[in-house]
């Protein structure tokens, strides 16, 4: 997933390393800040090895990653084209949490309702942060749209957590017996 991101940044035209960083920040806004600078170059190196990115070395310039010129190879362009045509959607990882609750209940390790509440609180905090970030962005910024998406996802997850709380509270009241 990470690799596609970098490939996407090179799709329009070849660019230097530092340009890539800047473009990433523009596209992702505050989320872009979270990314480690070094990771971009690691990814670029991997892509180069995979033959999807070509590196042009400018003459007379020290051999530093951010000064290098990167460009998509034909293979890289093909990969980008395939990626654009895909309709795969990032998978939400609800199964893990669901299993967590079942395990806690079965093994009597913790109160599932308490787990749900703790998770809710965490998600609410995240929602708060995402919302704040979304509102801080100027209206026309591209990043604002991304942040809106994050907020709505969190909202949906919180709704599911409310449902979990309702169900597990009822479970506590009328236990169906051990599974």
């Amino acid at each position: 997933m990470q690799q596609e991101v970098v490939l996407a940044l090179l799709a329009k035209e070849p660019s230097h390393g530092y340009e890539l960083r800047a473009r990433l920040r523009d596209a992702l806004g505050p989320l872009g800040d979270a990314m480690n600078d070094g990771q971009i170059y690691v990814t670029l190196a991997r892509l180069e090895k995979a033959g999807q990115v070509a590196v042009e070395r400018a003459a007379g310039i020290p051999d530093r990653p951010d000064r290098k010129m990167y460009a998509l190879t034909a293979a890289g362009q093909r990969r980008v084209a395939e990626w654009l045509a895909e309709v795969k959607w990032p998978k939400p990882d609800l199964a893990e949490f669901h299993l967590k609750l079942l395990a806690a209940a079965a093994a009597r390790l913790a109160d599932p309702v308490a787990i749900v509440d703790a998770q809710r609180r965490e998600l609410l905090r995240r929602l708060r942060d995402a919302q704040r970030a979304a509102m801080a962005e100027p209206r026309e910024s591209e990043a604002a749209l991304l942040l809106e998406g994050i907020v709505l996802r969190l909202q949906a997850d919180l709704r599911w957590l409310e449902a979990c709380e309702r169900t597990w509270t009822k479970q506590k009241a009328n236990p169906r017996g051990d599974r």
Partner: protein
Amino acid sequence: MSETMNQSMLRARGLCKQYGRDASLVRAVDGVDVDVPAGETLAVMGPSGCGKSTLLHLLGGLDRPSAGEIWLDGQRIDQLSERRMATLRRDAVGFVFQAFHLMDELTAVENIELPALLAGRSPRAARRRASELLDQVGLSGRARHLPSQLSGGQRQRVGIARALANAPRVVLADEPTGNLDSEATLDVLRLFERLHEAGQTLVIVTHDARIAATADRLISMRDGAFVDDTRLTGGTAGNLGALVGLDG
């Protein structure tokens, strides 16, 4: 103890509200204690029928508790006469309704200036204040529009402006975005953020997590009682990138 009482803008002890009797007895609010310091935004969340709207009505003096005590800015209010209560509602409390409840035959600015007129301010001062508030909520171009000519979000913004007309000490909002789409919700959110920054004490009842997330504190309610009380400020969630799987 007295310190907290002085700091508390809104305080309730053992608040109860029940309807019906015997077999049909319903406890809408069942022994609730609340403490809202000045300047805090408190969100109350819960499923429908949990009593959160009733709680808000009690705090705002729109209904009488069956039992319990309520203090607003240090003054006991649950046993005031209707007349004193009305004065309180006029000067100290601003209410925002889910259904907006604007007067259909008054324009936006006339709706907003009404509490000021009722408080005895001169028509000119009231009109000036109303125009300012209309500006603050971003609707100065719609001063002369009737509610029927405004969208839901715009109507609610007028409602919020009206609640602020007499510079209340507490603003109580009952499902303010219940009837709004997400765009309008964002507008209302922004307003609440601004109010919060200006130091307004705010109590919001909602089942929209987005609104709740703007609060300093979140209380969960079920079956008339509080079941959870969380601070949302202080300690963020870590880097945002984790939300979208951008790390690692």
